[in-house]
Protein backbone atom coordinates (compact mmCIF):
# COMPACT_ATOMS: atom_id res chain seq x y z
CA UNK A 1 0.00 0.00 0.00
CA UNK A 2 1.59 3.33 -1.04
CA UNK A 3 2.45 5.85 1.68
CA UNK A 4 -0.04 8.44 0.45
CA UNK A 5 -2.83 5.83 0.48
CA UNK A 6 -2.06 5.09 4.13
CA UNK A 7 -2.26 8.82 4.86
CA UNK A 8 -5.63 9.10 3.09
CA UNK A 9 -7.09 6.10 4.92
CA UNK A 10 -5.81 7.10 8.36
CA UNK A 11 -6.94 10.71 7.92
CA UNK A 12 -10.29 9.35 6.68
CA UNK A 13 -10.70 7.20 9.78
CA UNK A 14 -9.92 10.18 12.03
CA UNK A 15 -12.59 12.29 10.29
CA UNK A 16 -15.01 9.36 10.58
CA UNK A 17 -14.42 9.21 14.32
CA UNK A 18 -14.61 12.99 14.72
CA UNK A 19 -17.79 13.16 12.63
CA UNK A 20 -19.55 10.59 14.76
CA UNK A 21 -18.32 12.28 17.97
CA UNK A 22 -19.62 15.62 16.68
CA UNK A 23 -22.98 14.09 15.78
CA UNK A 24 -23.16 12.71 19.32
CA UNK A 25 -22.19 16.04 20.91
CA UNK A 26 -24.74 17.97 18.86
CA UNK A 27 -27.51 15.80 20.34
CA UNK A 28 -26.51 16.40 23.99
CA UNK A 29 -29.30 18.40 25.70
CA UNK A 30 -26.85 20.71 27.50
CA UNK A 31 -24.84 21.40 24.34
CA UNK A 32 -27.68 21.70 21.88
CA UNK A 33 -25.89 23.23 18.92
CA UNK A 34 -28.87 23.05 16.56
CA UNK A 35 -27.86 23.37 12.92
CA UNK A 36 -24.51 24.96 13.74
CA UNK A 37 -22.46 21.77 13.51
CA UNK A 38 -24.62 20.09 10.88
CA UNK A 39 -22.54 21.10 7.80
CA UNK A 40 -19.33 20.32 9.69
CA UNK A 41 -20.13 16.73 10.51
CA UNK A 42 -21.79 16.06 7.14
CA UNK A 43 -18.61 17.19 5.38
CA UNK A 44 -16.47 15.25 7.85
CA UNK A 45 -18.33 12.08 6.85
CA UNK A 46 -18.81 12.64 3.11
CA UNK A 47 -15.53 14.39 2.19
CA UNK A 48 -13.29 13.64 5.17
CA UNK A 49 -14.22 9.96 5.44
CA UNK A 50 -15.91 8.50 2.33
CA UNK A 51 -14.27 10.61 -0.39
CA UNK A 52 -10.85 10.39 1.20
CA UNK A 53 -11.06 6.59 1.51
CA UNK A 54 -12.10 6.36 -2.17
CA UNK A 55 -9.20 8.62 -3.17
CA UNK A 56 -6.66 6.59 -1.20
CA UNK A 57 -7.85 3.22 -2.46
CA UNK A 58 -8.18 4.36 -6.09
CA UNK A 59 -4.65 5.81 -6.08
CA UNK A 60 -3.49 2.42 -4.81
CA UNK A 61 -5.60 0.07 -6.96
CA UNK A 62 -6.21 1.81 -10.28
CA UNK A 63 -3.76 0.90 -13.06
CA UNK A 64 -0.85 3.29 -13.21
CA UNK A 65 -0.34 5.31 -16.33
CA UNK A 66 3.40 5.31 -15.91
CA UNK A 67 5.06 2.02 -15.09
CA UNK A 68 7.08 2.94 -12.04
CA UNK A 69 8.34 -0.17 -10.30
CA UNK A 70 9.02 1.71 -7.07
CA UNK A 71 5.37 2.83 -7.06
CA UNK A 72 6.33 6.32 -5.98
CA UNK A 73 3.57 8.77 -5.23
CA UNK A 74 3.16 11.47 -7.84
CA UNK A 75 3.26 15.14 -6.92
CA UNK A 76 -0.47 15.28 -7.77
CA UNK A 77 -1.31 12.65 -5.11
CA UNK A 78 0.64 14.50 -2.44
CA UNK A 79 -0.89 17.83 -3.48
CA UNK A 80 -4.36 16.28 -3.31
CA UNK A 81 -3.77 15.02 0.23
CA UNK A 82 -2.32 18.23 1.64
CA UNK A 83 -4.68 20.63 -0.16
CA UNK A 84 -7.78 18.62 0.79
CA UNK A 85 -6.85 18.23 4.43
CA UNK A 86 -5.67 21.82 4.83
CA UNK A 87 -8.93 22.97 3.24
CA UNK A 88 -11.03 20.72 5.46
CA UNK A 89 -9.25 21.68 8.70
CA UNK A 90 -9.59 25.40 7.93
CA UNK A 91 -13.26 24.83 7.15
CA UNK A 92 -14.01 22.81 10.28
CA UNK A 93 -12.39 25.40 12.54
CA UNK A 94 -13.98 28.42 10.85
CA UNK A 95 -17.46 27.33 9.72
CA UNK A 96 -19.17 27.02 13.15
CA UNK A 97 -18.12 30.62 13.94
CA UNK A 98 -19.48 32.20 10.73
CA UNK A 99 -22.83 33.24 12.29
CA UNK A 100 -20.95 35.20 15.01
CA UNK A 101 -18.09 36.73 12.98
CA UNK A 102 -19.53 36.87 9.46
CA UNK A 103 -18.20 40.36 8.65
CA UNK A 104 -14.69 39.82 9.98
CA UNK A 105 -12.06 39.91 7.27
CA UNK A 106 -10.04 37.13 8.90
CA UNK A 107 -12.88 34.58 8.80
CA UNK A 108 -13.78 35.58 5.24
CA UNK A 109 -10.16 35.04 4.23
CA UNK A 110 -9.97 31.62 5.93
CA UNK A 111 -13.24 30.47 4.34
CA UNK A 112 -12.20 31.59 0.85
CA UNK A 113 -8.81 29.87 1.19
CA UNK A 114 -10.53 26.73 2.47
CA UNK A 115 -12.93 26.64 -0.50
CA UNK A 116 -10.11 27.21 -2.99
CA UNK A 117 -7.98 24.48 -1.39
CA UNK A 118 -10.82 21.95 -1.58
CA UNK A 119 -11.57 22.70 -5.25
CA UNK A 120 -7.84 22.61 -6.05
CA UNK A 121 -7.51 19.23 -4.27
CA UNK A 122 -10.33 17.74 -6.33
CA UNK A 123 -8.76 19.11 -9.51
CA UNK A 124 -5.37 17.55 -8.73
CA UNK A 125 -7.03 14.23 -7.83
CA UNK A 126 -8.90 14.20 -11.14
CA UNK A 127 -5.71 15.10 -13.01
CA UNK A 128 -4.02 12.09 -11.35
CA UNK A 129 -6.79 9.52 -11.70
CA UNK A 130 -8.39 10.46 -15.08
CA UNK A 131 -5.56 9.03 -17.25
CA UNK A 132 -5.67 5.84 -15.15
CA UNK A 133 -9.34 5.23 -16.01
CA UNK A 134 -8.75 3.66 -19.41
CA UNK A 135 -9.31 0.31 -21.21
CA UNK A 136 -5.72 -0.88 -20.94
CA UNK A 137 -2.26 0.57 -20.38
CA UNK A 138 -1.41 2.39 -23.56
CA UNK A 139 2.22 2.44 -24.50
CA UNK A 140 3.84 5.48 -22.96
CA UNK A 141 7.36 6.82 -23.25
CA UNK A 142 8.12 5.39 -19.81
CA UNK A 143 6.76 1.90 -20.54
CA UNK A 144 7.85 1.55 -24.17
Amino acid sequence: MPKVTRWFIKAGMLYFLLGVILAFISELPLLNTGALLLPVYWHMLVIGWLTQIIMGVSIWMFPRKWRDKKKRESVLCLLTFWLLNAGLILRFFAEPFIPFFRDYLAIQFVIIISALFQVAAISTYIAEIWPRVQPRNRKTPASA
Partner: protein
Amino acid sequence: MMPKPSIWMLRLALVYLLISVSVGGLLLIQKTVNLHPMLWSLLPIHFELAIWGWLVQFVMGTAYWMFPRFLKGPKRGNEKFAIISVVSFNAGLLFLMAGYFTEVHSSLRLSSRFLMLFGVTLFVAVMWNRVLSYRQVPHEHS
Protein backbone atom coordinates in the same frame (compact mmCIF):
# COMPACT_ATOMS: atom_id res chain seq x y z
CA MET B 1 -8.67 -4.40 -18.43
CA MET B 2 -11.23 -1.83 -17.37
CA PRO B 3 -14.58 -2.34 -19.17
CA LYS B 4 -16.36 0.49 -21.00
CA PRO B 5 -19.32 0.83 -18.59
CA SER B 6 -16.84 1.24 -15.71
CA ILE B 7 -14.84 3.85 -17.60
CA TRP B 8 -18.01 5.84 -18.28
CA MET B 9 -19.24 5.57 -14.70
CA LEU B 10 -15.87 6.49 -13.17
CA ARG B 11 -15.26 9.44 -15.50
CA LEU B 12 -18.80 10.78 -15.05
CA ALA B 13 -18.37 10.39 -11.28
CA LEU B 14 -15.19 12.48 -11.43
CA VAL B 15 -16.95 15.19 -13.46
CA TYR B 16 -19.85 15.27 -10.99
CA LEU B 17 -17.39 15.45 -8.09
CA LEU B 18 -15.72 18.51 -9.60
CA ILE B 19 -19.07 20.23 -10.22
CA SER B 20 -20.37 19.37 -6.76
CA VAL B 21 -17.26 20.58 -4.94
CA SER B 22 -17.09 23.76 -7.05
CA VAL B 23 -20.72 24.53 -6.20
CA GLY B 24 -19.99 23.65 -2.56
CA GLY B 25 -17.01 26.02 -2.56
CA LEU B 26 -19.19 28.85 -3.86
CA LEU B 27 -21.85 28.11 -1.22
CA LEU B 28 -19.20 28.09 1.51
CA ILE B 29 -17.89 31.48 0.40
CA GLN B 30 -21.48 32.75 0.12
CA LYS B 31 -21.84 32.18 3.86
CA THR B 32 -19.37 34.99 4.55
CA VAL B 33 -19.24 37.06 1.36
CA ASN B 34 -22.45 37.82 -0.50
CA LEU B 35 -21.58 36.69 -4.03
CA HIS B 36 -25.18 36.27 -5.23
CA PRO B 37 -28.33 35.48 -3.19
CA MET B 38 -29.56 33.01 -5.83
CA LEU B 39 -26.56 30.75 -5.18
CA TRP B 40 -28.45 28.97 -2.40
CA SER B 41 -30.80 27.50 -5.01
CA LEU B 42 -27.81 25.35 -6.05
CA LEU B 43 -27.72 23.56 -2.68
CA PRO B 44 -29.78 20.51 -3.82
CA ILE B 45 -27.48 20.15 -6.85
CA HIS B 46 -24.46 20.18 -4.53
CA PHE B 47 -25.65 17.24 -2.45
CA GLU B 48 -27.46 15.23 -5.16
CA LEU B 49 -24.30 15.28 -7.31
CA ALA B 50 -22.07 14.48 -4.31
CA ILE B 51 -24.11 11.47 -3.21
CA TRP B 52 -25.58 10.02 -6.44
CA GLY B 53 -23.23 11.41 -9.06
CA TRP B 54 -19.96 10.94 -7.20
CA LEU B 55 -20.11 8.42 -4.33
CA VAL B 56 -22.74 5.99 -5.61
CA GLN B 57 -21.60 6.04 -9.22
CA PHE B 58 -17.89 5.66 -8.38
CA VAL B 59 -18.67 2.61 -6.24
CA MET B 60 -20.86 1.15 -9.02
CA GLY B 61 -18.13 1.68 -11.62
CA THR B 62 -15.44 0.12 -9.46
CA ALA B 63 -17.65 -2.83 -8.49
CA TYR B 64 -18.50 -3.60 -12.14
CA TRP B 65 -14.78 -3.60 -12.94
CA MET B 66 -13.40 -5.48 -9.92
CA PHE B 67 -15.99 -8.03 -8.78
CA PRO B 68 -15.30 -11.70 -9.69
CA ARG B 69 -15.78 -12.43 -13.38
CA PHE B 70 -17.46 -15.43 -14.99
CA LEU B 71 -15.15 -18.06 -16.38
CA LYS B 72 -17.61 -18.97 -19.15
CA GLY B 73 -19.48 -16.63 -21.48
CA PRO B 74 -19.28 -12.83 -21.17
CA LYS B 75 -16.84 -12.15 -18.30
CA ARG B 76 -18.95 -9.48 -16.64
CA GLY B 77 -22.40 -10.66 -17.64
CA ASN B 78 -24.59 -8.86 -20.13
CA GLU B 79 -22.67 -5.68 -21.09
CA LYS B 80 -25.67 -4.20 -22.90
CA PHE B 81 -27.61 -4.19 -19.64
CA ALA B 82 -24.68 -2.48 -17.93
CA ILE B 83 -24.56 0.20 -20.63
CA ILE B 84 -28.33 0.78 -20.41
CA SER B 85 -27.94 1.00 -16.64
CA VAL B 86 -25.27 3.74 -16.96
CA VAL B 87 -27.31 5.69 -19.52
CA SER B 88 -30.53 5.43 -17.52
CA PHE B 89 -28.92 6.36 -14.19
CA ASN B 90 -27.15 9.39 -15.64
CA ALA B 91 -30.13 10.54 -17.69
CA GLY B 92 -32.13 10.39 -14.45
CA LEU B 93 -29.50 12.42 -12.63
CA LEU B 94 -29.40 15.08 -15.35
CA PHE B 95 -33.23 15.30 -15.42
CA LEU B 96 -33.14 15.66 -11.65
CA MET B 97 -30.76 18.62 -11.98
CA ALA B 98 -32.94 20.14 -14.70
CA GLY B 99 -35.98 19.64 -12.46
CA TYR B 100 -34.56 22.06 -9.91
CA PHE B 101 -34.55 24.87 -12.48
CA THR B 102 -37.87 24.35 -14.25
CA GLU B 103 -41.53 24.87 -13.48
CA VAL B 104 -42.41 21.23 -14.25
CA HIS B 105 -40.35 20.43 -11.19
CA SER B 106 -42.41 17.58 -9.67
CA SER B 107 -43.13 15.57 -12.84
CA LEU B 108 -39.53 15.89 -14.01
CA ARG B 109 -38.29 14.82 -10.60
CA LEU B 110 -40.60 11.81 -10.61
CA SER B 111 -39.44 10.66 -14.05
CA SER B 112 -35.81 11.31 -13.12
CA ARG B 113 -36.13 9.19 -9.98
CA PHE B 114 -37.76 6.45 -12.07
CA LEU B 115 -34.85 6.49 -14.54
CA MET B 116 -32.39 6.26 -11.66
CA LEU B 117 -34.37 3.40 -10.11
CA PHE B 118 -34.40 1.59 -13.47
CA GLY B 119 -30.64 2.08 -13.82
CA VAL B 120 -29.91 0.79 -10.33
CA THR B 121 -32.28 -2.19 -10.79
CA LEU B 122 -30.45 -3.19 -13.97
CA PHE B 123 -27.12 -2.74 -12.21
CA VAL B 124 -28.19 -5.02 -9.35
CA ALA B 125 -29.45 -7.60 -11.88
CA VAL B 126 -26.11 -7.53 -13.73
CA MET B 127 -24.02 -7.72 -10.54
CA TRP B 128 -26.08 -10.19 -8.51
CA ASN B 129 -24.46 -13.39 -9.79
CA ARG B 130 -20.99 -11.90 -9.59
CA VAL B 131 -21.21 -11.76 -5.81
CA LEU B 132 -19.65 -15.18 -5.34
CA SER B 133 -16.65 -17.15 -4.29
CA TYR B 134 -15.02 -19.39 -6.89
CA ARG B 135 -14.49 -21.98 -4.14
CA GLN B 136 -18.16 -22.19 -3.20
CA VAL B 137 -19.59 -22.79 -6.67
CA PRO B 138 -16.85 -24.44 -8.74
CA HIS B 139 -19.31 -26.49 -10.77
CA GLU B 140 -20.97 -23.35 -12.17
CA HIS B 141 -17.88 -21.33 -12.95
CA SER B 142 -15.15 -23.75 -13.90
